[in-house]
């Protein structure tokens, strides 16, 4: 992989800290490398924020006078074996890097380059910035003491398990790659998407017996520091035996474990992780889990799908509004139906009401009871459909939906209107992008059903206000769950409900400068055939 030169918009560095105005003018050369090896290593390490996966291997070669050589790479991205094979061994076997051997003209770097014939292409970096960029892209750098330049070459490692299509969050368009069980592989996927020196990767080992490798991934300056500190504190204070999955970790760090609202977003999509990290959220990767946990997550992420990043603003907006509507319907459909039919049938147009009343004729159970049973059965069918091996899924659906539903209606056990409404609610719940959340969120329909069948509309209204209060009272890592903004970015409700074109969206800035800056370098649409 060559160091990528992006076309079109030059990737703008996040944050302006550590950037040198004059350096930018010199076409991205940045701070030059120094002759001192130790200084260079320190500079690289601090620029990357002392990442846990930064590997530095010092070599002392035979002979006299021999310069110190350091081989630097990010262990998570690079294939370590290949480094050993192609660099370390040839270098160790190299007797000496002498000036005389190759003539006066060649410097030690040139000598090194010529003595590593197994590598197909070697590049040279003269600035610290280029070098760190190369490291983040999966290159291995060789630094020599006394030389203000470094060599680097590509050694990206192939994944251990084949990356697969994310099954829990399928999209029609957009990347079709999911996280896997290995933390390093996942980190590679994230690093491939955010190649920025301020991307921080922190390692924690949690679990007395499991000693699970847990990584915090965030962008320094974008993720609020107090949230990071709090999360770090919570992770460090965990005292447990086993961590097998992010779900287990979630339970240990969440603010309100018993709330039906899940305040941590689980995703198996690296593009989602990258996008959310860029908004100031923190990703937690757990060894052995293909799900990343994104904290702090807000209520409105419920209606956000990975696809929204890739669709045009209009369709994404329509879909978001549709999903919100679907969610509300999935919670409210059955309670409202019971309330209307049992209390406020004046609301229904007479022909429709007569149809409802006619179908309910002869049904032995009271409607609230029938509604409760139907909802429970629907959840059972749904659960059974998920748990069964794939081949049995359709069988359960047929049994559940067709035979059970049809014959229950025909036998006059359940009014067909109720079946229609309950089914609609269930289908609506599948329109919510995060299935695992929707299930928990939908639990509130049972109390609402109870209130609706006791007090009608007033009951549902009071219950709804209580739930609004509950959602509003939730806080995750100090950030309000119902806040309309992601931690690093202020957003209005309208921004949450519709997608704004990227050209009108502010670039995420470090919190200190979280003012709304419009995207600077948007290519202005221009008609190439226009005359003037």
């Amino acid at each position: 992989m060559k160091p990528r030169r992006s076309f079109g918009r030059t990737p703008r560095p996040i944050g302006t800290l550590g950037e040198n105005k004059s350096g930018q003018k010199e076409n991205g050369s940045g701070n030059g490398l120094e002759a001192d090896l130790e200084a260079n290593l320190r500079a690289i390490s601090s620029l990357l924020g002392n990442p846990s996966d930064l590997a530095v291997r010092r070599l002392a070669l035979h002979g006299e006078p021999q310069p110190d050589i350091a081989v630097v790479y990010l262990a998570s991205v690079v294939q370590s074996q290949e480094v050993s094979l192609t660099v370390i061994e040839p270098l160790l076997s190299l007797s000496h890097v002498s000036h005389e051997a190759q003539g006066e003209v060649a410097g030690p770097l040139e000598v090194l380059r010529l003595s590593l014939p197994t590598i197909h292409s070697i590049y040279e970096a003269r600035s610290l910035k280029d070098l760190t960029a190369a490291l983040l892209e999966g290159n291995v750098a060789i630094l020599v003491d006394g030389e203000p330049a470094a060599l680097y070459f590509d050694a990206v490692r192939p994944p251990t398990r084949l990356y697969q299509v994310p099954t829990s969050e399928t999209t029609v368009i957009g990347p079709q790659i999911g996280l896997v069980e290995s933390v390093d592989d996942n980190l590679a996927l994230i690093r491939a998407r955010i190649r920025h020196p301020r991307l921080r990767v922190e390692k924690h080992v949690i679990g007395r017996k499991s000693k699970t490798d847990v990584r915090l991934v965030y962008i320094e300056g974008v993720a609020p520091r107090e949230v990071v500190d709090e999360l770090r504190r919570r992770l460090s204070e965990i005292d447990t035996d086993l961590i097998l999955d992010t779900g287990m970790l979630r339970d240990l760090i969440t603010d309100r474990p018993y709330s039906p609202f899940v305040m941590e977003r689980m995703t198996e999509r690296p593009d989602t992780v990258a996008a959310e990290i860029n908004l100031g959220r923190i990703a937690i990767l757990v060894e052995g889990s293909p799900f990343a946990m994104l904290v702090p997550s807000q209520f409105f992420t419920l209606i956000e799908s990975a696809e929204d990043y890739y669709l045009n603003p209009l369709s994404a907006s329509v879909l978001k509004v549709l999903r919100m509507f679907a969610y509300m319907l999935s919670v409210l459909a059955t309670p409202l139906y019971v309330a209307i039919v049992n209390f406020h049938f004046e609301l229904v147009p007479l022909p429709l009401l007569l149809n409802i009343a006619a179908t309910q004729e002869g049904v032995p159970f009271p409607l609230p009871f029938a509604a409760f049973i139907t909802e429970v059965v629907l959840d059972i069918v749904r659960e059974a459909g998920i748990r069964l091996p794939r081949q049995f899924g359709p069988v359960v659906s047929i049994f559940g939906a067709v035979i059970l539903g049809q014959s229950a209606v025909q036998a006059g056990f359940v009014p067909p209107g109720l079946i229609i409404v309950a089914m609609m609610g269930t289908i609506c719940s599948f329109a919510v992008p995060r299935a695992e959340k929707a299930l928990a969120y939908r639990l509130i329909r049972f109390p609402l059903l109870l209130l609706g069948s006791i007090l009608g509309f007033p009951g549902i209204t009071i219950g709804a206000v209580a739930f609004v209060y509950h959602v509003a009272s939730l806080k995750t890592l100090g950030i309000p769950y119902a806040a309309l903004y992601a931690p690093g970015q202020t957003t209005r409700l309208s921004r949450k409900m519709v997608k704004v074109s990227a050209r009108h969206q502010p670039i995420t800035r470090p919190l200190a400068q979280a003012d709304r800056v419009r995207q600077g370098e948007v290519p202005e649409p221009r008609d190439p055939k226009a005359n003037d």
Partner: protein
Amino acid sequence: MISSRQLFFTIALARISALLVLLPVVQSGDARQDAWIAVILATAASVVIVYLGTYLASRYPEKSLGHFASDLLGKPMGTIVTCLLALSFYALCLIRTRLMSLVLISHFMRRTPGWALAVPVLLTAMYGAMNGPDTVGRASEFLFTIMIMIIVGALIMSCIWGIDRVGGLRPVLSRGLRPVLAASVPATFLGLVSGLQVLALGRFTVDKRRMTRAAALALIVSGLVLLAVTIDVLTTLGPTQAQMYVTPVLALASSIFIEGTLERLDLVLMASWLLGITFDVTTLLMSSAILIGNSFRLDYRKVAFVLTLLGIVPVSHRFTDIFTMRRLHSIPVTGIWSVVIVAGTLMPVLIAHLLRQRKGGS
């Protein structure tokens, strides 16, 4: 901490729901077709009084009335003055809960006992109040959006599918200004009570400088909404008929129907009103608890809990009925009550503050 936007939503939502269904400008007094002028007058009067309240609140940014009244007037006087306002909030909170249950029962659910509606509302209010101003502020954003959407939708429907407009806004002031002034008294009272909650909530507001603007804007926006509703009611039902109804707005909504789609708009409006009333009761309970708590140096959550328990009996007992409620919203009662609040709470504190400022300045 709540933002000034949330303060705006809180006050506007509380005032709209307090005034919407009763529509005291139409109901009490004899303003008839001039009732819409009474809305404007009431809004203007509440803005003036609430401005004084926000002036005080912004001078003591870290304190509520419970703190600075004691500082300015001494411990015993300050406590009395604060409790006057706090108990007004509390009494209104109970009155509103009771009224809501009575209206719902007489209109929609005749067999339901009063406590079955009042107690859940009070408990929900307690839940909200005990979670504090942050929660209430965030909830207000959502609830305000929903309520405004329903009211605006209902107004549009009434324009498209409503019946012929019989009444008109003219003649203007045909019987002098007196009845208009009288009709604006209850509305002023209810508006200023919603606005004076800044004396309790101001402490929790992030941006003190924009607090005054937010409160005034909330009163004005709610005034505009009420103006639109009042005009719609007056022109559709006619002033004489509107005055007869317990809730003119529900009567108006019941005359609108879209054939084959929505047969009863009043049921939908009732649900949204209940949404607002529950929120209104929450803020009143919370403001009252905060003031009492700050005055006696107690945790306001505990105060809210106790107040709720104390309120359950008066809210659900049968010793009040809708006639009592009407009398409580009548012109003399609300007039005296507003004078008591202004002269008994706002003025002493304001004067003491000004005196101290002059002393400090000279």
